[in-house]
């Protein structure tokens, strides 16, 4: 494999890893506060449809983005109601919302555009267009690093950089602010947070809301950045891969970046069977590559590569002592 091909693959790694990263961070906030979120997939799908549809109707990707976030938030609120207020089963709520999203996105998109549940192809300002970072062209001549900067780092849409920026921001929020300390505490031992006079319910709603926001960005990126428009089931299990990455990362932000980029790399490789055959000398079955993120996650879960211990109070509704 030559350097140019590697750069191409790394470029798609970053593009394919971005929605995973955003969704993974969404899951991180939610699960760190003690709310399991199987519904990342559904929220992303909903956001993808809302942003694709509104961007197509309004012609502005930014209004589309807002609509995407709103759609994802709506689902986040229902998940919050079910798992915080009504102390229902968080896993079942997530599964249910995924189904609702899967159906309702097609229903609405079909009603609006009559194109088989798709939105029209987005062009111009209705899409996030590539941003060329400063000096990308002038530095291209620098050996090794120049092409890397121009090909891989530069030339992505705004949301890719937002996602990358969200990693240090998440780290800072979780480990350097009072909110973060409380958030982590509420996922481990909500009773102690309650005793300290901090509202468990409010903290958890905040976390679920942040998860909704990030899933909104992830879905909007799918429909208006990665692809030009919404298509039915377009998230194709990415919410579950993000969940896998979250476990792989053991619920930590920087590791979430590495895990999602690894899974993005696998997805990018799966798109280039010719390259794989060149490297290994034989054809690796594509289904194996598709399944690799899940297999790796099971291996991690099984505790063969360090132990993945979820937040202790995860999945448990908190009942205030009376």
């Amino acid at each position, binding site marked *: 494999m030559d350097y140019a091909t590697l750069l191409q693959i790394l470029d798609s790694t970053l593009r394919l890893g971005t929605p995973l990263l955003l969704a993974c961070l969404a899951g991180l906030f939610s699960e760190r506060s003690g709310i399991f979120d*199987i519904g990342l997939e559904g929220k992303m799908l909903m956001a993808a449809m809302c942003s694709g549809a509104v961007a197509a109707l309004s012609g502005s990707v930014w209004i589309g983005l807002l609509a995407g976030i709103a759609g994802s938030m709506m689902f986040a609120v*229902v998940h919050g*109601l*079910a*798992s915080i207020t*009504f*102390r*229902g*089963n*968080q*896993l*079942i*709520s997530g*599964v*249910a*919302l*995924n*189904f*609702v*999203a*899967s*159906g*309702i996105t*097609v*229903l*609405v998109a*079909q*009603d609006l555009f009559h194109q088989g*549940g798709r939105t029209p192809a987005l062009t111009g300002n209705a899409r996030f267009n590539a941003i060329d970072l400063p000096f990308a062209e002038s530095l291209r001549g620098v050996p090794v690093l120049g092409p890397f900067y121009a090909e891989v780092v530069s030339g992505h849409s705004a949301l890719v950089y937002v996602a990358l920026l969200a990693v240090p921001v998440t780290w800072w929020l979780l480990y350097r602010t009072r909110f973060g300390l409380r958030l982590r505490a509420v996922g481990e031992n909500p009773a102690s947070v309650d005793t300290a006079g901090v509202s468990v319910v409010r903290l958890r709603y905040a976390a679920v809301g942040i998860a909704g926001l990030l899933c909104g960005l992830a879905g909007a990126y799918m429909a208006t950045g990665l692809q030009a428009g919404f298509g*039915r089931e377009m998230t194709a*299990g990415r919410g*579950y891969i993000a*969940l*896998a990455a979250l*476990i792989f990362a053991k619920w930590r932000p920087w590791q979430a970046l590495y895990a999602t980029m690894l899974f993005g790399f696998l997805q990018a490789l799966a798109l280039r069977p010719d390259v794989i055959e060149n490297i290994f000398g034989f054809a690796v*079955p594509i*289904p*194996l590559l*598709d*399944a690799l993120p*899940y*297999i790796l*996650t*099971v291996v991690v*879960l*099984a*505790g063969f590569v360090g132990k*993945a211990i*979820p937040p202790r109070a995860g999945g448990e509704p908190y009942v205030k002592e009376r």
Partner: protein
Amino acid sequence: MMDRLPRWADVVLVPLISLLLAAGISALTLLAIGASPMEALTTMVTGALGTPYAWGYTLYYTTSFIFTGLSVIVAFHAGLFNIGGEGQAQLGGLGVALVCLAVPWPHWTLALPAAMLGAALFGAAWAAIPAYLQVRRGSHIVITTIMFNYIGAALIVYMLVNVLRPKGQMDPASAHFPPGSNLPTLHELPGFSLIFTKQVPANVTLFIALLACWLVWVLLWRTRMGYQIRAFGKSDKAARYAGISPFKVTMVAMLISGALAGLMSINNVMGESERLLQNSSEGAGFIGIAVALMGRNHPFGVFLAALLFGFLYQGGAEIGLWTSIPIELRIVVQGLVILFTGALDQMVRMMLGLVFRPRKAEAA
């Protein structure tokens, strides 16, 4: 508030009101997209229940959903949430295909037991690994079973494309099963052919599904193992103290659960498509969750809920065929039913509590 509800209200009213809420929201969704809920309902009723031919489709779906619903409740009773029914059902399909293609079966009465064994073994095997990882390595069974759904789907694609696909065939599917392994449909069964005068997909496996309902009831409420499963599900600590082995209960419950999910393949793979296709279970594994929740964790409830979802699926297909409403409506209804019966059940109970409390106060 929960225990104040009379038992009959908890068993009958909670699922009923959840269903009404789900139907109501679906109707609002339909109104929002400018479709008529009444038209949808009448299309569903005539298309799923109006004729014996329609019933032949409804009962076909019901058969699959009984198996996957039972699969979910056996795990539920042990306190385990098996989301892996989808993968286990598809692996079961692989088992059925391997058995049916292995020898030129002379008659279905010989092929069916062998295929059932294959389906159950493969389904159980696919549930065994997550179960083992749960008890021995402490990995969460919900996550591992989700992962195994995807791994299973990838494995099936590989098997279909690289192993089972006959030479010269383009689409990823196995060869057709030998005629000797084809199951009689209700149209071909003596007696039933008087009602089902046209060819329908519902087949003899419907009776096996009904038998499975009864067997699961016997297992859970009439055997020592069933008692251990339920005790462990209610309180694993108490069960452990009483000398019940968590390893044994988890493994047995998940193996039975996986086997039941796998068994649905005798209906769709052996009884209907008569070859293994990609994504053979078509979401029936997930519908099992809705069926189990709606059926209040009881085999008889599963039977009723499977009928309801059979109606919903056949009716949904008719809606997709005859009206402008997309077929995806049925996924919305399915999701809403799961949401209200499984996650917002407390809300429904609180609503009911408001109705029941004043009456109690008067009596007191």
